[in-house]
């Protein structure tokens, strides 16, 4: 069994109002070194696949079909042994 760890985040240039709302709060807390913050989503998907290449294909299909909205989101993922 393999597990895919998928991160989705807004594409460059797409407004991220949640990130914008969190940023001033973090500044107020005194984290002066934090310059920017972007919100996203995290999915953990267990996949019964023969090898990483097969699991990778499944993840890409899953993302393009439903998990990710390609109009406004990009994604990254890694595949590990469960």
């Amino acid at each position: 069994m393999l597990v895919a760890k998928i991160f989705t985040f807004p594409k460059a240039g797409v407004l991220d109002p949640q990130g914008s709302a969190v940023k001033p709060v973090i500044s107020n807390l005194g984290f002066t070194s934090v310059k920017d913050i972007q919100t996203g989503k995290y999915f953990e998907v267990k996949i019964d696949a023969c090898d990483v290449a097969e699991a990778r294909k499944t993840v890409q299909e899953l993302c393009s079909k439903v998990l990710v909205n390609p109009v406004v989101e990009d994604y990254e993922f890694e595949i590990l042994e469960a």
Partner: protein
Amino acid sequence: MRCAVIQFAGSSGDGDCCHVFKNILGQSADYVFHKETFKPADFDIVVLPGGASHGDYLRPGALAAHTKVMESVKEAANSGKLILGIGNGFQILLEAGLLPGTMLINKDIKFYADEVLVKVENNATPFTNLYKKDEVIRLILSCKYGSYFADAKTIEQLKSQNKIVLTYCGFGKNGDEEDPVASMENIAAIANQEGNILGLMPHPERCAEEILGNTDGLRMFQSILQYFEGGKTL
């Protein structure tokens, strides 16, 4: 006119839509559950109502867009049947790829529920033929993800093909509140290229009776009836 109102898990505008078609316009209206299918010939118009379908989980409309009934909705859309998506129904049409673009969370991250003023940019559609072009009407907006977004090419296409049907021109009772939504090009409603699919964020079914204090939304439903019956106004 035979109308289908789709019921997704969590739909809340289904009853109001059915009520308008049945009790106000005197037409036939049936609910279709999201696990069911239908044939294009079964209905003249399919309504995807508002209400956070499937909990708005993942993204608004994303889960509803992949339910079984949507295969039938796509088939009906491709055979030229009218499809009307209201609020979350609009988001479902976007996620299903039946309309271009997507909805982002409102600029101020709040759920907005109040009256809005919208301008009729295109009255040559089956959904708006009883409004005057550039007429400003009052509808109800009720959404958290109402900020329409699309790439520059899509926006250009919508504009050049006159597919932006309604635009926001005022928020709140007096229309003087700050825009909480920040929708691109102030888009409140768009149609597909063929013109048989309309997605709109405001809720015409919530202002379709005198008792509700506003009947501006009724003319959208009457327009649809007019489209089928031709030349006859109610």
